[in-house]
């Protein structure tokens, strides 16, 4: 092999390496973009699901998991119209008082009892 031919082969190899490098970098960029889009779609679906939080989606009635990772009404209850176990974890919660009742006395303003 002559010196000239060796130079041509070296240039061809360098060109091929550059092409492979560009291809790998491009594929990586596309993959990253795909992940980003996927995350965005997940976030969007969560946002869409949130207005139904208080209404407890019906998916639990069929025993399947609710839509999205922040599903509502993920009761562990059984199917159809049968009872739920009462052990599920809802997404709503009862809000505690800013301060607990204090012991008091004297004339009351009102009574709280069964009605």
């Amino acid at each position, binding site marked *: 092999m002559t010196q000239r031919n060796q130079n041509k082969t070296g240039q061809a190899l360098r060109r091929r390496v550059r092409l492979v490098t560009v291809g790998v970098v491009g594929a990586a960029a596309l993959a990253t973009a795909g992940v980003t889009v996927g995350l965005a779609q997940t976030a969007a679906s969560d946002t869409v699901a949130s*207005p*139904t*939080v*208080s*209404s*407890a*989606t*019906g*998916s*639990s*009635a069929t025993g399947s998991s609710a839509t999205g990772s922040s599903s*509502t*009404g993920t*009761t562990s*209850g059984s199917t159809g*119209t*049968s*009872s*739920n*176990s*009462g*052990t*599920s*974890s*809802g*997404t*709503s*919660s*009862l*809000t*505690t*008082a*800013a*301060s*607990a*009742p*204090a*012991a*008091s*006395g*004297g*004339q*009351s*303003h*009102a*009574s*709280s*009892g*069964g*009605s």
Partner: protein
Amino acid sequence: MSRPLAGPPLIRTATRVDFDVWSTTATLVVTDPDALDAALAELDDELAGIDATCSRFRSDSEINRVLAAPGRDVQLSPVLNAAMTAALRVADATDYLVDPTVAAAVIAQGYDSDIAAVVARAMTDGAIGASTSAGRPAPGAWRIRHDPESAVLHLPAGVGIDLGATAKALAADRAAARIASATGVGVLVGLGGDIAVAGDAPAGGWRIAIAEDHRGSAQTHQTVAITAGGLATSSTTVRRWRTSSGWAHHIIDPRTGENPAPVWRTASVAAASCVDANAAATAAIVLGADAPDWLTERALPALLIDVTGGARALAGWPASKAAA
């Protein structure tokens, strides 16, 4: 002024008025005597709005119109939308221990009209309602589709709704808030023992007697003071009637469609709102032996009275003599 829902005042002082409504007693207290009439007008208006939308005992109520149109999207009024939002949030927050779909079970127990009429009929007929062993689990509020933003409700066929577990407490919360806003004074609204306060509390807080029955002081357990939010009591000793298999009451376990096992006869809870306090009190009666842990985990101050009269104070509720 016409007050179509309310009976004549039972008590009227410079800062307080009590009257009958919904077969129970309403109490309105304000910190400024000059605000009492305006506050009463606001309360009357709120009660009328809740009654027209949420009462299952009125054939012309909005909820009955909704129940007559299952299986399709229905646009709700702002008041019923708020009531549904509260009821479904409570169902979710209590793991469906307080569930508006208990309507069929409540009716099966004989509670098919105003409680005064139910009790009167039971006394006349001897016993009413189905056997307590004939209960069926509630369909479950998770089957209801409701978008509070657009105020659209989709009720599946065969799913009834009884807003009785939350509507009265919601009325108390809403009335207290609008009175405080309209008058700028401190206010207490009590509806059958479901109490909401708003505005600046009087010195020492709003003093509330905790009793088995809100109407009488025959058995007052203690007096506590609150400055904000709500306090509610659920009890199996009132709204009772005789059925073919014994006494029944108005609290239904949605898991069974029956009255819960008799562990606690009365539960009082304080929370950030009357709706939440009432929901927790009812859930405690339904939960029975598991109620203390459930309330403590949620940091909800509570007083539980068991069926023998023993008291148990939880989560920061001040110890009463009986509970000490």
